[in-house]
């Protein structure tokens, strides 16, 4: 195992239409650590994970995973790189035509030649870890949002990947499963030396598991450091976010014209207008 960072993001630019989501983002994500990415809703965290996973292509800049430029790989090389990653989607994204068991077994079945009995044991082990072994015959339609996300987590770790991208793992979990998930992420990271990237709004939980934090807002990294250094960071934007204050320099609103102009003026382009 080397000390080189697992993921390097260099001068990343990305926009959707005219809206620039990233303007020169730089990050290095260390190997075998838990790195958290935080930022206001709509700041592009999910987009960043999709850029790392190679589903979106940046306008400029590059993303290196273990030394490979994700967006210059051939389709085949990209797919084999993805076998080494797991991603937990914000929506869960379980396959609706397969039951819980087959969803978790899917990566094992397509990428390994393990005999059925071993697949069964592995799947039940992963489901046990997220507390849903008893639910293995349910279909995704029969799961609650929080349960679906936990099944998706079991699926994401089924192949014991080297890198896991978690998009909002704690949303929709009750305090008990939340605690279990925090422990699980931590344990996976320590036991298997996984590199983990966690995107989350839950400051307390995230601070408790993250080794390193990046704070993004307005298309840029506004601060980064260990939880301790960020906690004492003097930048008002950072302390506003870390301490969850509604008023401050970090905008809560999507960029817009001044409110009174939308209400009184004719700048708004609505269908009726």
């Amino acid at each position, binding site marked *: 195992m080397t000390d080189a960072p697992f993921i390097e993001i260099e001068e990343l630019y990305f926009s959707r239409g005219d809206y620039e989501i990233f303007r020169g983002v730089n990050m290095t994500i260390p190997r075998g650590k838990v790195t958290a990415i935080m930022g206001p809703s709509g700041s592009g965290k999910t987009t960043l994970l999709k850029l790392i996973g190679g589903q979106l292509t940046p306008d400029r800049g590059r993303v290196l995973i273990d030394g490979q430029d994700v967006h210059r790989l051939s389709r085949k090389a990209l797919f084999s790189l*993805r076998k080494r990653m797991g991603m937990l989607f914000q929506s869960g*994204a379980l396959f609706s035509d397969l039951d819980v068991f087959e969803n978790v077994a899917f990566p094992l079945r397509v990428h390994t030649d393990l005999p059925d009995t071993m697949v069964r044991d592995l799947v039940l082990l992963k489901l046990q870890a997220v507390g849903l072994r008893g639910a293995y015959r349910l279909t995704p339609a029969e799961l609650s949002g929080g349960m679906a996300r936990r099944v998706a987590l079991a699926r994401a770790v089924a192949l014991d990947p080297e890198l896991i991208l978690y998009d909002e793992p704690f949303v929709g979990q009750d305090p008990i499963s939340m605690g279990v998930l925090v422990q699980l992420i931590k344990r996976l990271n320590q036991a298997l030396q996984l590199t983990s990237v966690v995107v989350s709004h839950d400051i307390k939980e995230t601070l408790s598991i993250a080794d390193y934090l990046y704070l993004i807002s307005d298309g840029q990294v506004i601060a980064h450091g260990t939880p301790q250094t960020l906690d004492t960071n003097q930048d008002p934007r950072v302390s506003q976010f870390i301490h969850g204050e509604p008023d401050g320099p970090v905008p809560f609103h999507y960029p817009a014209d001044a409110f009174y102009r939308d209400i009184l003026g004719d700048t708004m382009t609505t269908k009726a207008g």
Partner: protein
Amino acid sequence: MQSKFSSSSARITRLGRRGCDLIEAWGRAGVFLAQSAVSVPSREGWRLWLHQMHFVGVLSLAIVLVSGLFIGMVLALQGYTILVDFGAEQALGQMVALSLLRELAPVVAALLFAGRAGSALTAEIGLMKATEQLTSMEMIGVDPLRRVVAPRLWAGFVSLPILTIGFGVVGIWGGYLVGVEWLGVFEGSYWSNMQANVNFISDIGNGVIKSMVFAVVVTWIAVFQGYDLVPTSEGISRATTRTVVYSSLAVLGLDFVLTAVMFGGL
């Protein structure tokens, strides 16, 4: 206020952009077909294909066969009333068989297939896209073009020609029921006239070729519309409608072209 010049140049710009969008969409659809249909299936691929043959083919069987029966019956009824005026009702078998094999079976089966299987394919793939199932499959390192799209494409390619043959056979039988059993055309002349005048290659063969072309076009449209749609509920409903409209127009238009080439001496 905008000047006349700038508004007309804006219109030209818009027209140009729509042209570019159209060409781009054709390009995407072509690349899509090449990437998904042209791949060597694994053992798992065969299993998935069989599974789709059930959904795409077997489940369309009832509607196609019932329609074939009725169309054959109507053909015999209409044909008889015309032919009997000329005392030529012995030619009924030939008339029913030729209309079915050359035109009605390939065209009507393809239209029914677009409504029954095509729209379902679009909605299914579209929903998988909207719920990020396709993206998550990609992230697991499995190409959805091979895993989801290819088995569905090939199921459509194979099942429509088979359905078309079924349509034709049942239609001829329906014509027999009405013509011979009901209206009293002599049974021997119904079959022997048909045998003497239907050419295996130029009639049956050409009908099957037509249905193969329609199978490719309809399935391609359906699956591509699902894969390329805007992933919202409105996007899914629009794409489903587009599948039925585009495939129907494509089938009818291509039918004219193919008929002109095959039977029109073009």
